[in-house]
């Protein structure tokens, strides 16, 4: 695997992800982009605010890439999360993998987003019309 791109940024540029993953040894590239959806359960979301414990989040993201690379043969990896205020439809996370065959890129991409949501110290606050809620904070 080449040196992965692991970043926490203010804004995600989805257009450049393919260039970052493009690779002569890869036949498949799988990219997942998480975006802000306009409703949660039954309420209209106006925006999301993301906060990260950045130094630790980058370490945890690097662990996820290492774990995925141990499970599947990966050529290139991008894992990039946004912080700050994000409006509906904006990208908040992008995870991309290029591999020789498509099985591995789908499986690794899915593994990385699932694990990111479980372990990386990043927090999301949903802003509704008249209140705001830290997602998953309470049972």
């Amino acid at each position, binding site marked *: 695997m080449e040196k992965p791109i692991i970043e926490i940024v203010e804004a995600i540029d989805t257009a450049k992800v393919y260039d970052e993953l493009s690779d002569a040894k890869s036949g498949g590239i799988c990219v997942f982009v998480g975006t802000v959806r306009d409703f949660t359960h039954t309420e209209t979301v106006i925006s999301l605010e993301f906060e990260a*414990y950045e130094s630790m989040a980058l*370490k945890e993201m690097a662990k996820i890439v290492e774990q995925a690379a141990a499970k599947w043969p990966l050529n290139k990896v991008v894992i990039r999360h946004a912080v700050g205020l994000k409006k509906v439809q904006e990208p908040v996370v992008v995870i991309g993998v290029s591999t020789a065959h498509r099985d591995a890129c789908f499986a690794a991409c899915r593994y990385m987003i699932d694990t990111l949501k479980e372990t990386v*110290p990043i*927090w999301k606050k949903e802003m509704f019309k008249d209140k705001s809620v*830290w997602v*998953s*904070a309470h049972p």
Partner: protein
Amino acid sequence: MEIFLFGIARDIVGSSSLDLSTSGEQPESVGELLDVLKDTYPKFNTLSSLAVAVNGEYAALDEHLGQEDEIAIIPPVSGG
């Protein structure tokens, strides 16, 4: 001993960090730190989970806390 607070933990304490050096209680382990926090701010008991990171790594309850450690309270994460 300075402790970083994020997300709802920051809202509960009302500050992004907490300095326990000046207080009488100096927790010596992750478990003791959580006990102090829950006693002082009972709202921590209402969270789905509560973890502590020491020097940027998730720490077990029996992990020792030193004055030079970077300590952070990790409420339930919700990235992605």
